């Protein structure tokens, strides 16, 4: 036998984490602490910012005709007279138990308001995400197969065009194109999923596409670059020297490898979509989170605003967390760092 047991590159240990079990628990532990810390910092700063900016909640609620005494009284009742730190403490205690307070403009619990708007945003996000993946992956595969060729140029130009058109123009274009010309997609008649699921889906399609298109262009561009890079790597050369076909190399090797870095981009895209798209909701007249946020800002509805910012922060941080775990699932280098010796 050959002395290959002692050819070890022991320095590889240095660059990696501890063994499988140790490292995994430690890694996820750190990430969860990071996650909670981020949520605290984000929520505190938004809460603090809303207390500094001009605009008085009590005045907004009671109207310009209320007397100073009435305003003062309202403040005492709702606890607005307490210092910021104390109010934040009260609020975050409630938030942990799921109570985000009551919206002053809607006079309804904030959590109820957010959850009632969630189906629209979740529905659009899910459909848009599917569109992003289903379209950008094949396009990037086609494009990266022969960079610089006609098809690559056509796809790239097309990508730039949809990326460059402002969303509201894109939305209007879509309406004209699909609803007026083809007429099979309903617009403006929103139905809750519990009432009429088919109608819900059909009125989601077009807005989802409008949200998805720029994201498709972005994901495509990123994936294309990543795939071109992966195609030049050593393992592709090895696979070719084993007699593997181009298609197989693309699907079995290039695709998973370029996905490792693309997952982060997709999580960015998704957190963007889940925040609600103000413009698309406005154009298509959908009761989503974007419009709720706009309303909350315009009437200085602080409880609602704080609740929504917390929601956005949670979504973003949790998505990053999921993206990291997904990348670790695909990539054994992030999952198994122990250098075992055969």
């Amino acid at each position: 036998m050959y002395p290959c047991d002692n050819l070890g590159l022991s320095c590889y240990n240095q660059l990696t984490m501890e063994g499988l079990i140790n490292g995994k628990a430690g890694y996820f532990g750190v990430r969860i602490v990071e996650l909670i810390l981020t949520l605290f910092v984000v929520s505190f700063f938004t809460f603090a910012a809303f207390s500094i900016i001009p605009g008085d909640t009590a005045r907004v609620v009671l109207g310009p005709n209320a007397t100073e005494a009435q305003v003062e009284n309202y403040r005492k009742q709702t606890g607005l007279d307490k210092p910021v730190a104390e109010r934040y403490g009260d609020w975050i205690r409630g938030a942990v138990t799921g109570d985000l307070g009551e919206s002053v403009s809607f006079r309804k619990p904030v959590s109820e308001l957010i959850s009632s708007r969630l189906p629209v945003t979740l529905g659009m996000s899910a459909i848009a995400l599917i569109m992003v993946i289903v379209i950008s992956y094949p396009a990037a595969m086609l494009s990266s197969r022969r960079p610089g060729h006609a098809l690559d140029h056509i796809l790239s130009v097309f990508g730039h065009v949809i990326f460059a058109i402002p969303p509201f123009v894109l939305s209007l274009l879509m309406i004209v194109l699909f609803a007026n010309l083809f007429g099979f997609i309903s617009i403006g008649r929103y139905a809750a999923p519990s009432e009429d699921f088919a109608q819900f889906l059909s009125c989601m399609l077009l807005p989802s596409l409008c949200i998805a298109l720029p994201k498709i262009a972005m994901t495509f561009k990123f994936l294309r670059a990543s795939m071109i890079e992966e195609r030049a790597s050593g393992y592709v050369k090895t696979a070719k020297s084993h007699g593997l076909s181009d298609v197989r190399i693309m699907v079995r090797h290039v695709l998973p490898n370029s996905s490792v870095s693309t997952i982060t981009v997709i999580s960015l895209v998704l957190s963007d979509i889940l925040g609600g798209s103000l413009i698309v909701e406005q154009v298509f007249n959908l009761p989503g989170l974007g419009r709720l946020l706009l309303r909350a800002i315009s009437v200085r509805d602080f409880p609602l605003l704080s609740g929504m910012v917390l929601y956005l922060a949670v979504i973003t941080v949790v998505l990053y967390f999921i993206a990291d775990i997904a990348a670790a699932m695909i990539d054994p280098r992030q999952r198994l760092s122990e250098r075992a010796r055969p």
Partner: protein
Amino acid sequence: MKNILEVRGLSLSFPSKRSSAVKVLDDVSFNIRDGEIIGLIGNSGSGKSMTALSVADLLPETASVEGGQILFDGEDITKMKPKDRRLLLGDKIGMIFQDPMTALDPLQTIGRNLDEVLQIRNIPVRERKDRIIEMLKTVGFIDPEGVYKRYPHQISGGQRQRVLIAGAALLHPRLLIADEPTSSLDSVTTMSILKLLKSLREKLNMTILFISHDLYVVRNFCDRVMVMKDGKIVATDNTEEMLTGTNNAFIAEMLAKSRLDPSELLLDMPSVDYSGSPILNVKDLVAGYSSGILSRKARTKTLKEISFDVYPNEIIGVIGSSGCGKTTLAKTICGLMKPTDGEIRMKEGMGLGVVFQDPGSCLNPSHNVRWHLREPLIASGSKLSPEEQDKVIRRVLEDVGLEQKHLGRYPSQLSGGQRQRVAIAMCLVLEPSLIIADEPFSSLDAVLAASILKLIAKINRERKTAIILISHNMRIVRAMCKRVIVMSKGRIVEEGLTGEVMKNPGSDVTRELIEAEKMLGGARQSSTGA
């Protein structure tokens, strides 16, 4: 003897829109006999890799074949259907490449990486695994089942090259093309890979086309040698005749240029006073990489209780295989890494310079050579006027063998050897009394590597600069260093005058390094005719 491969009049070029096409292969013709190991040598850019890639049909898309025949077993494979030609790879022709670190899909286990070769040829699952395990055993793995389940990052570079050889040999191809398979491996690993290839030839009855830039590697390994220069095959002969007879001018020149003669280099070196005070004193040095969030304590110690002295004017060698801690030692001494324990003391008023392995990545691509040479002066707060700075830069430039015209060039406009010279010049402008050279030649071909080593010897001689030369190659250390430190697994296992360490090696690591040197060119005196 029957020819397994005949290449006739092969011409290849890279068409370019602006200028005339760049001719890479010019009417290349050669034969490979059944069962032989034939070497193909030449400097970087001579067209050796392109020749191999043409045979395997793995040329980059921009290349255009202008003519020629490639007969494999009497059949012209250039006229085959694309699918048949593709399946010929792996089936009849196996191939391995230079860099084993990136040549396996990092997301798949070794088993799955190899499995595909058989899967696309519709071999049943059960049989596939058995054949892979069998082949892994053949290439020298003691625990093939274990390796089968591992991921590429969990095994070393040498082991990866074995896996790749297993993949190439899985279907028992008639011809194995090895494109610089050992250039990125250390000398001990190189030796074991060459031994493996030789044994595989016997076991599987393979013919091997071995591509290399290193005459010393080819010498003890190949039956015949072909030499390429500027896209042409300039000589073909049996290895012994080729390398002993100096009737071919080009070979003679290549031999002379890549030769490192200790009797020549060492004699010229300034004398070293070992009784004086050392210029660098390293004591009980411990360093490593920590993985904790709060603690800085090293979990994995890469350096363990390292102690040694470096004296003025000397070239001291630090030798060891990949992963022994040589580079960490260099990084720790020059301050790029913090030691966790121990002391590093420089003699007062002495400057320290460092030159790293890869000259390409050490230079900033958006600045020219002049900027690179002025930057250290500015960063060190030099009080010289711009004119005086220019004077220093010009003198250093001359010392490293570059010309005035190179000052305005950018890294991308320089060759690998020139880039390494710039890196050395950057270190010289501050006139250090000690330079750490961490394998500054390992990414260069044999001729260029020798020229850089000669430059380092010249700097030592003329500037009286002490040098720590880090290498995995005993041949280089023997030619350059009076004193040597042998490292293994983060420790110094042996230290002493090079001649004595060579004569009475005190550790297995040293013996392995010496054995590797013997195999990779120990017969130097007899065959160079010097």
